[in-house]
């Protein structure tokens, strides 16, 4: 090894110090530049991010399996410990659910009959894509998870992601083999919902806490704690009627909702492929609606003509 001589150090160290200071300024500047790009060029941000996520997902997929097994073992040990009390609770719940099942069957039949009577347009079909949660970035600024399914599995931006209990979030970014789900609790999440028996419309807005807020609720709306919150289907992003949670707190300043999803045990997510164009394809939806309205108007005009001619004959 060549040791630097004294004079070399004397010349080199200020130069080095200057260079490192310059590099710091340059890189901090670059970081702020990236912040600016992030604000202005969403497409580039998304492309870069999905590329990196795609690269990382197979690794996460492999490593997260033992982690899942491990937490499964802990869960099992926990449930063994309170087997008896759990059994009693489950029996009670089962009885209650059987009752609800009967009610639901009855309502389903009634609903089908009424729809038939009204010739209601059926909701578009739904298809489910099940994916494993492989990444949870955590941190204080975002609430999102990564799943191990992407474009090649039929995942598309805007689709709803659910657990058995209810809505967890929506697909925000799609890579080839991975996708990022923006959870309903994230600060950027806004979902049109319907609340309670009065079926009041509102927007469910996340704020990075576990209890998202209800915004833009009409002044006449009357809410009680325990009222159900479901998706309204407005905006054509989500299918209507997906369960989200219940109203958990009502105060002067804010109304909070407790989602049904158990964030700690979110191992799998079902992505709902609702056969509707959603936010990404407004034009075709509008065109379809316009065509429908035109057809309906023509039909109505025909019916009116027929009705007008009817009594004369």
């Amino acid at each position, binding site marked *: 090894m060549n040791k630097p001589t004294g004079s070399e150090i004397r010349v080199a160290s200020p130069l080095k110090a200057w260079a490192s200071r310059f590099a710091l300024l340059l*890189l901090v500047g670059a*970081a*702020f530049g990236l912040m600016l790009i992030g604000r202005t060029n969403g497409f580039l941000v998304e492309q870069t991010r999905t590329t990196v996520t795609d690269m990382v997902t197979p690794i996460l997929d492999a490593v997260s399996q033992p982690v*899942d097994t491990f937490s499964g073992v802990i869960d099992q040990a926990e449930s063994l410990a309170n087997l008896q009390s759990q059994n009693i609770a489950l029996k009670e719940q089962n009885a209650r659910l059987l009752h609800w099942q009967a009610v639901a069957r009855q309502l389903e039949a009634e609903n089908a009959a009424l729809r038939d009577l009204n010739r209601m347009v059926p909701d578009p079909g739904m298809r489910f894509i099940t994916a494993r949660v492989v990444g*949870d970035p*955590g941190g*204080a*600024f*975002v609430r999102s998870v990564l799943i191990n399914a992407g474009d090649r599995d039929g995942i598309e931006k805007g689709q709803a992601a659910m657990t058995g209990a209810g809505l967890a979030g929506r697909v925000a970014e799609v890579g080839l083999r991975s996708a990022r789900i923006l959870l309903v609790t994230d600060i950027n999440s806004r979902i049109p919902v319907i609340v309670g028996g009065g079926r009041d419309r509102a927007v469910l807005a996340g704020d990075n806490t576990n209890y998202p807020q209800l915004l833009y609720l009409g002044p006449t709306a009357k809410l009680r704690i325990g009222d159900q919150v479901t998706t309204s289907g407005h905006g054509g992003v989500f299918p209507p009627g997906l369960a989200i949670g219940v109203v958990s707190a009502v105060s002067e300043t804010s109304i909070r909702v407790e989602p049904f999803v158990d964030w700690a045990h979110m191992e799998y997510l079902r992505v709902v492929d609702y056969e509707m164009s959603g936010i990404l394809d407004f034009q075709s939806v509008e065109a379809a609606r316009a065509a429908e309205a035109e057809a309906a108007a023509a039909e109505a005009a025909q019916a009116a003509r027929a009705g007008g001619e009817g009594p004369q004959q």
Partner: protein
Amino acid sequence: MRQGVLHRLDGVARIISPFFVTLLLVLLALLPLRVSAIAPIMPAVALVGVFFWSVHRPDLMPIWAVFLIGFVQDLLAGGAWGPGIVGLLLAHALVVWQHRFFLAASFVLIWCVFMLVAAVAMTVTWLCACLAMMTYIDPGPVFFQYLMTVAIYPCLAWAFLRGQRLFQR
């Protein structure tokens, strides 16, 4: 000849290991732990890695590596680009600025300094995140994340030191 190649590979591995170990930590921190309360306050492991090596082997944690680690972290987190990078760069700069101080410092003293540096870095990260997202973000989880990061520092530092000794043998 063969010996020479292996020797050189070994040397390269030693040089890039701090960078890759820190990147690996960032990846591992992504794993879903299925513990309800931990996700929002997941310790900032990248900060621990960058601080540790900036103190002990600044030659192996150059500033561009810090930038890259921050960038990957911000990309994977799914939030805004930049805030994490600024925080890490700041931590690195603070350590390099006072480098002489660490030459004779004990572990406990370095840990105390880490508390200060992490506080500054995470506050700046939070400010930048608010700026980048153009909203006010509740600083509560950031504070708990800070506490977790400070608490996990000795464990990670111990593991890093063991790894370093293993390499030197």
